[in-house]
């Protein structure tokens, strides 16, 4: 079996921006000779930043799901929609594939992101790393699916712009929408501040 050599053991760094491999020169801050970005051995304050962002996102997840994201006023009825009731009304309209899409993108994906990131952070803090390969696959899944949660925000913005027929039908945005945007943005930032290499560090030490 080949020996596993980590970059930090042999003084090799990799530029986060252009992925150039650079030799570390002492303790001074290193800049990438190719693109000029500052290079860090590990992203500074990665665990603290990611945990903070995930905690805020988890708090916002509650109002995002409980508060209405949209109010509809028509000649016949006044109604408010949370994300979940929006999914239900899509089912009633008979478009269950879209209902499933919105359900997954707006409810399942954010929850999955929060749980997965929390699991990653806990495994790092417990210093009992688990299987790094599985954890890094989980992280990449989170990173890949996170952006799709914005779907409902776009749908609402189009509805708001179009359904403004005075005194017949109009729409207002609810506070839930802002909480929901907060969840999406904060979890995306959390994924970006997370340093995958931390998952592998324990292995080399062991």
């Amino acid at each position, binding site marked *: 079996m080949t020996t*596993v*050599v*980590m*970059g*930090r053991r042999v003084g*090799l*760094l*990799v530029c*986060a*921006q*252009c*992925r150039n*491999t650079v*030799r570390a020169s002492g303790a001074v801050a290193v800049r990438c000779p*190719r*693109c*000029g970005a500052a290079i860090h051995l590990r992203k500074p304050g990665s665990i603290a930043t990611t945990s903070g962002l995930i905690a805020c996102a988890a708090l916002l997840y509650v109002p995002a799901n409980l508060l209405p994201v949209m109010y509809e006023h028509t000649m016949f009825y006044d109604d408010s929609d949370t994300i979940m009731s929006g999914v239900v*009304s*899509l089912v009633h*309209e008979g478009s269950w594939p*879209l209902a499933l*899409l*919105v359900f997954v*993108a707006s409810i399942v994906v954010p929850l999955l992101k929060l749980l997965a990131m929390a699991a990653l952070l806990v495994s790092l803090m417990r210093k009992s790393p688990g299987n*790094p*390969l599985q954890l*890094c696959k989980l992280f990449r899944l989170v990173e890949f699916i996170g*952006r*799709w949660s*914005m*779907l*409902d*925000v*776009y*749908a*609402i*913005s*189009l*509805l*708001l*712009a*179009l*359904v403004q*027929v005075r005194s*017949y*039908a109009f729409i*207002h*945005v609810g506070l839930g*929408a*802002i909480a929901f*945007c907060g969840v999406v*943005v904060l979890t*995306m930032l959390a994924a*970006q501040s997370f340093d*995958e*290499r931390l*998952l*592998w*560090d324990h292995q*080399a030490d062991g």
Partner: protein
Amino acid sequence: MSSVIVCHACDLVQRRNVAATRVRCARCDAELYRTTSASIDSAIALGWTAALLLLLSNLYPLVVLQLNGATRETTLFGAALSLYLDGYGVIGALVLLTTVLIPAFQVGSLLYVLLPLRHRRRAKRQNELFRTLTRLRPWALPEVFMLGALVAFVKLSALAQVIPGISLFCYGAFMFSLAALTSITPTEQFWHWVEGSRG
């Protein structure tokens, strides 16, 4: 160029395979780098295509709604503006940034650095711009917007007659051209072009 490469995702040191155009980490399977056989010229051509399509998609209505003889239409700017007028400017800004401004910055700055490179010159602040461009990539969400528009369509069709506008087709085409542009200008390829322009 050094003969070893360090994985950005798991820190494993491995031998660089100079001949390969796409290299993955032996341990964690992250893509270490990718080069393409595309020329700067094709990247520039795609860049102009994307720029033109994005411009067109903001000039014409995205969606037209007909309800009891009244007609409403909107553009992406209109959607952001109505969010602002409803007191949710933050969401409006987020929508505008992720669907128009950041993608526009991506295309614009890529053209700005590639056009001089074609004549073996370097644009001012080339490195900073290319770094910003790479960093902003996760925040350009045209494909998510297209699906969101589909959801809005279905919801509205229960209420009124909705007609897709010219801009929706332009924006759809823009989505594909931006994806193609991103795929033929991987970071490593860009630096090959820069290094090739020396001397």
